[in-house]
Every structure is written in C-alpha cells, then in structure tokens.
C-alpha cells in the first residue's frame, strides 16, 4: 500500500461530535471516527515516524478486508497477527472486523537468546486458535514462517506479501453482536494458553462505560501509549478506545520505551496528552531514568489521567514518581488506580478521577487470621507494623454485579476478604475451544471467578489484596508458575511433579521468581550445572532471573490428594531463608542458602 506520509500529528480536537462508543460493533466505530480528522501517530526512537488518520485507516482496512474475503474463508475464521506497534496491526485488525474474520493478536516481544522459545510459543498459539491466516511484520516474519512450517494455513507472510493478493468484489459483512471481536491470549500461560473470546457487544459495552464513567472522555482528550498491542490494556484501552471515542493517540513501542523510558513523557509533554496508563514499573522506570535537564524541559501539566494497573500498586513508589515530576506540572491527583482483566474485555473499576490514590489501612493480623479488613487509623502507620495498606481500586463500572465469596461459595459482607466474582455484559463468552477451563471460571449463570482476593469497603470500593491463582507478576508481565515448572520437568534429572514455582519478595519489595526443584542428582558439580541450565532456560523463555533451589526427593509439600502445594512450598522456601522482605544482600543470602 502506498502511503502518503504527512508528518504532522493528527489534531487533538475533532470536527465530529463526540460519541462514547455507542455503536453496535467495532467496524461501525471506525466508520464514524473516519469522518473526523483524528487518528493515530507512531513514534520511533523519539521521532514521529508515521501518521495514520482514522479516515485512512478505514480505507486501508477495507481494501485489506476485500483481499481477506478473496481467500474464501469460513466466517469467523481466525487471523493471527503478530502485534508489533505499527500501523499494519491496526489495518489488519480492523480489516478482520470488516471481513467477518476474528483477529488474534500474538506477542511481538522476544527475549535475548530466546529464538527457540519464541518460535514454539508462536507455533502453539497459531495452532491452538486454529488460524487460517498469519501475518507478521517483516522483522518478525522469519520467526512466524519457522513457527507455522508444520501447520496448514491459507496464507502466511508479511503485510506487503498479503497486498499482492487480489481484492474480492463481494459485499463485506462486518462482525456484529454476539460474534467475536477478537481473541485475547494474554490471560493464559505460554504453555497452556487460554484465549478469552470477547464478543462485539462485550467490548463495546466495556468501552462505552470506560468512556462515560471510568475516564469520562471529553473533546480535549488525547492518549499516549507504549503498552503492547497484544496486551488487553494496550489493545482495548489504547487501540480500540481511541477509535471508539474518535480521539487521537500517540504510540511508541514497548521496546522503545524500555530502552529509552524518557520518550514516553516527552511525547505526553509535546502533544499535551491527557491520558496515559501503565503498570507501576513503567512509572518507576521513568522516574529512575530521568535526568535533571529533562525535568526542566518537560511539561506534564496536561496529564489528567495517569492510570496505574496490571499489578499490585505500592503507594510509596507512586509518591516518588509524583514528587520527582511535580516541577514539570505533574499532579499526583492525576493518578487513577485501574483494575481489570482480559476476561472482562478490559476494565472492571477505576478509582475516582482527580483524587489521586486513596489508601485503605487495615489490621494485618485480622486480615491474615480472620480474613477481615478492619480499618485502622493511618496515622498509626509509622509506629505500628501490624497495619497493611492497600490502594483502593474504586467502584466497579455500573454494568457489573459484584460478589466476594468465601471458599465454600457463600457471599461475604463488606470488609470480608474472599474471592472476587463478577457478572456483566463485558465478560468473555468463553476460552476459545476449551469448555473445561471455561467452566472452571465462568458459571452457567454468567458469574466470572476473577481468581483475585478482594474485599469491598463500606463505600463500595474494590480493594484487591492478592491473587488466588498463583500468578507471578514481574515488571507487569504475568508469568505462570506451571510454565516455569514445565521447563524444569523437561530435564531428565527432574522428576515430573517435583517442581514448585512461586514468587517471593525481591529487593525493593518487587516480586521475583523462585523455583524449588526435586532433583536426584547427588554430584555437586552436576547439580550446579543443572541449576545453571535451568536459569538459562527460564531466561531465554521469559527474560527473567529466577532463583533455583534444588532439593532432595519428596521434600516438596503435597496436599492430601498428592498435589503439590505451591503456597506451602513458598512458605518453606521463605522460612529457610529466614526473611520475608529481601534486600539486595538478602538476595545474595538467598543464593548462598541454596
């Protein structure tokens, strides 16, 4: 496709009257946005590299949709898209909407040395979603081609290869109503992926409430995002949201952000953006990398909604960010705590706007022993360490019914901690092709088990206290313990079922991964080699450091039914090291102890 690049960002103010996602489906949302002057803008290494007004996006998408139709695929067939932060992802995503095909975003992030792991991840995802078409940007096409070698697809290639196909003359019938809008694979693990199927009606209902109640979108709003397009917040929040609200958005890639975090704030400053959301570590990283000169040159006064989500929020960390950037006009009242998940399209709740983070201090002993969140006076905080402080995540969006239940399923009163259940139109239809896993989390009457532990305050605010599912979250990325365990169990020296992975507090209070492995190898040197091998494998697949602890056979705690208990293993691990909160030296201590 020949693109005429006009190198000026699309304007913030639109010529259209504002509609907050009151559409029937995503293609209608783009049809309307295309009548205005807003669009999306791509930055590369700090410079504006491509401008794509919605008008042009619609035109390109329809032309691709006609080519997709020409392939003669069954309606609802899946199209795998390697979701790099580039205009082609948007073009193909919307093309699928017009052509009646279901886009499935795939990760475009690779770890150093992770060639094999990435290819097998792609292979698994493309085959499990039964994709008929797979598209990768040029930079990723060699991995994709290698990944689909053994699979039978109608088309595999780059966007420019695809554009050589002929256009069909048939009328386009866009996806609508209960038909899927997309399948989101971020919620599952890499080895046992779970694809949340989100219908048109679900994603539209979520966007409408995000616009009207969560973020209260107005005519002067503009967003900036570095979140990956294959992530629910990146996709729904910053690709679909801006289209559904007809707002301009500026993108930089996650990789660009990770290498030069300052660019995020520079774009917000230059374009007077009002909305940007990220996980806590994104804020932390920016605060850490900023230089004196930057502070004087940045203007963050326009940023009215600095959303924080995707992992547990530590208030002190956010305070630090606010303090550092106060001279740039950053207001700490701009912080908005966000809670959501891919199974709910995206958003469940937002804390109240213009208020900043609100804390709830509770008696830690009551919480640990009786699961009750008894409020404490926050002024005691310094003197009394039996207080636990949580960030309130706000009231659920109006569509949700919400219940906190105990382990037997009884509904608990306010300020009692239990499992959080939700019901509402934004909730997924199913996990794709997996009725068993779907039934585990979604009841026939529509209640979703979030897997999160929470309580509700008397004002109706949701407070998340932890996760029942044993997820390990590192730098905003979900790592599933079973993925780490699976890696270890592939080793000949490791007994199947003899591995437990879990998260432990790392230096500075953030999480780090640890794994206890039952190993029958007695030789010291060989044990060392196994540990090194496991560390390398974990690194290549997940890009994280993992503490590996080899133990003798039958040492790991098991439940009465013989199942391995991760939480018990974690407890023993921490007891062994003798500390709950690790400092840098404690990490060394960890490493020595094992």
């Amino acid at each position, binding site marked *: 496709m020949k693109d005429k690049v006009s190198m000026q960002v699309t304007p913030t103010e639109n010529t259209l009257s504002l509609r907050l996602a009151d559409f029937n489906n995503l293609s209608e949302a783009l049809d309307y946005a295309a009548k205005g002057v807003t669009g999306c803008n791509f930055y590369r290494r700090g410079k504006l590299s491509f401008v794509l007004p919605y008008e042009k996006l619609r035109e390109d998408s329809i032309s691709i949709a006609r080519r997709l139709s020409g392939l003669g695929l069954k309606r609802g067939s899946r199209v795998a898209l390697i979701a790099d932060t580039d205009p082609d992802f948007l073009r193909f995503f919307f093309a699928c909407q017009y052509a009646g095909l279901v886009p499935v975003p795939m990760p475009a992030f*690779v*770890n*150093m040395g*992770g060639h094999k792991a990435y290819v097998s991840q792609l292979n698994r995802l493309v085959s499990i979603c039964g994709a008929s078409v797979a598209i990768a940007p040029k930079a*990723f096409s060699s991995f994709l081609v290698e990944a689909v070698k053994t699979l039978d697809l109608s088309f595999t290639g780059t966007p420019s290869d695809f554009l050589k196909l002929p256009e069909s003359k048939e009328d386009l019938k866009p996806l609508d109503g209960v038909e899927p809008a997309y399948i989101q694979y971020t919620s599952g693990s890499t080895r046992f992926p779970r694809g949340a199927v989100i219908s048109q009606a679900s994603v539209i209902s979520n966007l409408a409430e995000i616009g009207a109640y969560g973020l209260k979108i107005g005519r002067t709003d503009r967003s900036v995002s570095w979140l990956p397009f294959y992530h629910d917040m990146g996709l729904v929040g910053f690709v679909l949201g801006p289209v559904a609200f007809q707002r301009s958005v500026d993108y930089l890639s996650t990789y660009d952000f990770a290498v030069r975090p300052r660019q995020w704030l520079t774009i917000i400053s230059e374009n007077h953006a009002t909305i940007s959301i990220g996980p806590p570590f994104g804020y932390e990283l920016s605060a850490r990398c900023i230089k004196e000169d930057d502070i004087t040159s940045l203007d963050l006064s326009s940023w009215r909604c600095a959303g924080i989500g995707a992992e547990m929020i530590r208030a002190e960390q956010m305070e630090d960010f606010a303090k550092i950037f106060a001279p740039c006009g950053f207001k700490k009242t701009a912080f908005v705590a966000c809670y959501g998940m891919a199974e709910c399209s995206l958003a469940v709740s937002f804390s109240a706007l213009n208020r900043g983070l609100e804390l709830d201090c509770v008696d830690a002993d009551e919480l640990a022993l009786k699961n009750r969140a008894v409020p404490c006076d926050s002024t005691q905080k310094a003197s009394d360490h039996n207080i636990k402080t949580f960030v309130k995540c706000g009231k659920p969006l109006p569509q949700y019914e919400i219940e906190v239940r105990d382990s037997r399923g009884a509904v608990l009163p306010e300020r009692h901690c239990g499992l959080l259940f939700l019901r509402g139109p934004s909730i997924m239809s199913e996990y794709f092709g997996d009725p068993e896993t779907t039934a585990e989390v979604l009841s026939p009457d529509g209640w979703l088990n979030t897997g999160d532990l929470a309580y509700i305050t008397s004002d109706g605010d949701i407070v998340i206290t932890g996760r029942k599912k044993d997820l390990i979250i590192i*730098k905003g990325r979900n790592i599933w313990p079973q993925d780490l365990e699976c890696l270890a169990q592939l080793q000949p020296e490791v007994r199947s079922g003899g591995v437990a992975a879990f998260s432990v507090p790392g230096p500075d209070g953030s999480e780090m991964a640890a794994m206890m492995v039952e190993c029958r190898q007695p030789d010291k040197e060989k044990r060392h080699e196994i540990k090194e091998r496991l560390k390398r494998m974990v690194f290549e697949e997940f*890009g994280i450091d993992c503490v590996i602890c080899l133990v003798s056979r039958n040492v790991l705690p098991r439940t009465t039914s013989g199942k391995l208990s991760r939480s018990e293993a974690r407890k023993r691990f921490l007891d062994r090291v003798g500390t709950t909160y690790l400092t840098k030296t404690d990490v060394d201590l960890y490493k020595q102890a094992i």
Partner: protein
Amino acid sequence: MGVKSDYQDILNKLYEIVTPFIDEGIDLELNEDTELGPDLGLDSLKVMKLLLIVEDSFDVSIPLNILPDVRTIKDFAKQLEALLQEEL
C-alpha cells in the same frame, strides 16, 4: 560510524560496556562465549539498559528482532558487525 569497525574492535568495546554489568562479588572473566543472560544475571530491564549503551556507543540502531539470536558476547559482536556494515 565512518570507518568499518572490525570484529576485534567491536568485541573489545563490548567487553568494556558489559564489564560494569557484572554483579559485584561474581568472579567472571569475560570471553566470547560468556552468555549475556544467565552468566551475567541480566534481567530484561538490564538488557534494555545494556542495549541503550551499545546503541549510543556504536551509534547504531539495534532492531528488536536480532535479540532472539543473541546468546553470547560473540553472537552480539557478530550481529553488531553486520549492522554496522549495513549502515556504511
């Protein structure tokens, strides 16, 4: 870079850049086969920090898609050599 850097120069410069990333207390002599991840204990954020320094000191843009094939210092030097060639 105006002149063609030969492999050995790139390697030496890489050793220089990587050295501060070695955790204190780790006794490690860098060589071509040193693995950047497991040997140096680099997590993904430290990798990004390393990339920033490498990009700045070699004045080259490192595309994300070369990373999966970079395991050792030698791999990295070879990729850099190719990138610098391309830019000439």
